[in-house]
C-alpha cells in the first residue's frame, strides 16, 4: 500500500462525475487510466483527498465520427485509439504519436483524455492536439465549454480545466487525403520519457506547393509550441533543399528551451531543427513516391 488514504468514488455516468466535482471541488482529482496519477500517488508527490474514478463511465469510452472530425471520449484507451480503423484513416497522426506514449502495458490502460489533461511537457498527444487545432470539451455541473488546444495547455501539468471541471472529450479535425503525417521523438528509448518531439502534418498539392502544414514541438517549453512562423514561410511554396534548410533553422529558433541537468537547451533546439527538416523531406519523399 503506497499512496496515502483517499476517498474513492467510481461513478457510472458523466452526470454523477460533475456532481461529485461540484461537491468536492479542488480536493478531488479525476482518475482516467491512472498511468501518471498513480505513480505520483505511489511516490506521494500527489495526495488527492478524493479520487473520482472515470473507469466505469462507459459513455466516455466512445470514438464518434463528426462531420469533419473525430471525437474521442476522455476514456478511450490509448491502444484503442491507435488501433481503431477510424483513427488510422481519419487521423493518422494520432496512432503515430501514441506509439511513443509508453509501453503496451501502459497504453492498454492510459487514455486520450488522461494524456491531454495531465499535460506533461514531453507528452505526445498534447503536441498533436496543438498541431491539429483540436477542440477540448470541458464539462462541469453548469454545462459544457469548448477550449482550443492552443489555449488549453498553460504550462507544466497545468491546463484550462478548473477545479470543478473535467475533460469530457476532444475533437480532432480529420486529415486531408494524401497528407503526410509523422511524429518524431528524441529520447533514450522509443517508449521511454522523451526529450523533445515534433508533430507534423503536411499536405503537398498537385502543383507541388505546400497546401497545408501543421507543426508543433513538444518537450521544448512547458507546453507544446506551434511553429507558426515555419508554417507561414512554407505555405504556398514548393519545397526544395534550400527552403527546407531555411525552414528547419527557423523552427529551431522558434522554440525557447532552457538548460536542465540532463539536456542543454541548444540540444533541444537542434532536435527541433532536425525534426522540421526530416518532416519536410518526408513529405517530399512521400509525394515523389506517389507521383
Amino acid at each position, binding site marked *: 500500500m503506497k499512496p496515502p488514504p483517499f476517498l474513492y468514488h467510481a461513478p457510472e455516468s458523466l452526470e454523477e462525475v460533475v456532481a461529485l466535482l461540484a461537491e468536492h471541488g479542488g480536493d478531488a482529482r479525476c482518475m482516467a487510466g491512472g498511468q501518471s496519477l498513480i505513480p505520483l500517488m505511489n511516490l506521494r508527490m500527489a495526495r488527492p483527498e478524493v479520487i473520482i474514478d472515470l473507469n466505469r463511465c462507459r459513455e466516455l469510452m466512445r470514438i464518434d465520427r463528426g462531420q469533419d472530425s473525430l471525437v474521442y471520449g476522455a476514456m478511450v484507451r490509448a491502444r484503442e485509439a491507435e488501433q481503431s480503423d477510424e483513427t488510422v484513416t481519419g487521423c493518422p497522426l494520432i496512432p503515430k504519436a501514441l506509439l511513443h506514449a509508453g509501453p*503496451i502495458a501502459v497504453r492498454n490502460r492510459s487514455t486520450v483524455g488522461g494524456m491531454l489533461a495531465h499535460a506533461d511537457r514531453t507528452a505526445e498527444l498534447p503536441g498533436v492536439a496543438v498541431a491539429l487545432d483540436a477542440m477540448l470539451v470541458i464539462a462541469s455541473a453548469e454545462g459544457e465549454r469548448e477550449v482550443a488546444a492552443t489555449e488549453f495547455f498553460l504550462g507544466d501539468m497545468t491546463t484550462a480545466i478548473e477545479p470543478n471541471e473535467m475533460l469530457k472529450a476532444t475533437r480532432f479535425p480529420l486529415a486531408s487525403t494524401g497528407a503526410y503525417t509523422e511524429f518524431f521523438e528524441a529520447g533514450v528509448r522509443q517508449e521511454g520519457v522523451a526529450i523533445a518531439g515534433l508533430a507534423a502534418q503536411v499536405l503537398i498539392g498537385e502543383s507541388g506547393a505546400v497546401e497545408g502544414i501543421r507543426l508543433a514541438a513538444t518537450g521544448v517549453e512547458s507546453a507544446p509550441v506551434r511553429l507558426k512562423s515555419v508554417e507561414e514561410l512554407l505555405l504556398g511554396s514548393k519545397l526544395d533543399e534550400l527552403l527546407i534548410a531555411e525552414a528547419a533553422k527557423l523552427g529551431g529558433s522558434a522554440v525557447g528551451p532552457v538548460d536542465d541537468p540532463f539536456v542543454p537547451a541548444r540540444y533541444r533546439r537542434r532536435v527541433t531543427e532536425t525534426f522540421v527538416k526530416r518532416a519536410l523531406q518526408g513529405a517530399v519523399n512521400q509525394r515523389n513516391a506517389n507521383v
Partner: protein
Amino acid sequence: MKMLHEIAVTVNGDRFVEEVEARYLLVDFLRQRLRLTGTHVGCAHGACGACTVLVDGQPMRSCLMFAVQANGSEITTVENLSDGERLSPLQEEFRRHHALQCGYCTPGMLISATALLAENPRPTEEQIRTYMAGNLCRCTGYTPIVRAIEAASRRKH
C-alpha cells in the same frame, strides 16, 4: 477512518470476494491478500514492468491499478501459465535459452510475452523487442529473452 470496498475478482480461474481499502494496489492485493507471490514489485511506479499481469486478457501494470478498480475483472498471473507440473512452452524456452539470471523480471516478461504470442503468434524480432520494451531486465541484455520468445513462437505451430 478506514473505508472498505467490496470487490469480486476472478484470479487464475478462481473467484474471490474481498474487502479492500481504495488505496490497496492490485499487485499488493495479489501478493499479500491472495498470497500469489509470483508477481513481483520492482519499482511500484510503472517503470520496470515486473508486476505485469493480464487484466481481461490484456497486459497491464498491477502497480498502476488499485484492486478496487479490478472489480469484475478476470486476472491472470504467472502462476497460471503452467499446470503446476510441466512448464509452458514459453517457460521452457526461457529456461533453455537462459532468458533469466536473477529471475526478478521473469514473471512480467512471461506475462508480456504470453500476451504478445496470443496477439501475434509469429512476431518478428523487431515486433518482439517493441512489445517487450516495457519490461526491464538488468541481467540478460535481452537477447536470450528475444531468442526464447522466438523459439516459443516456432513451437506453437
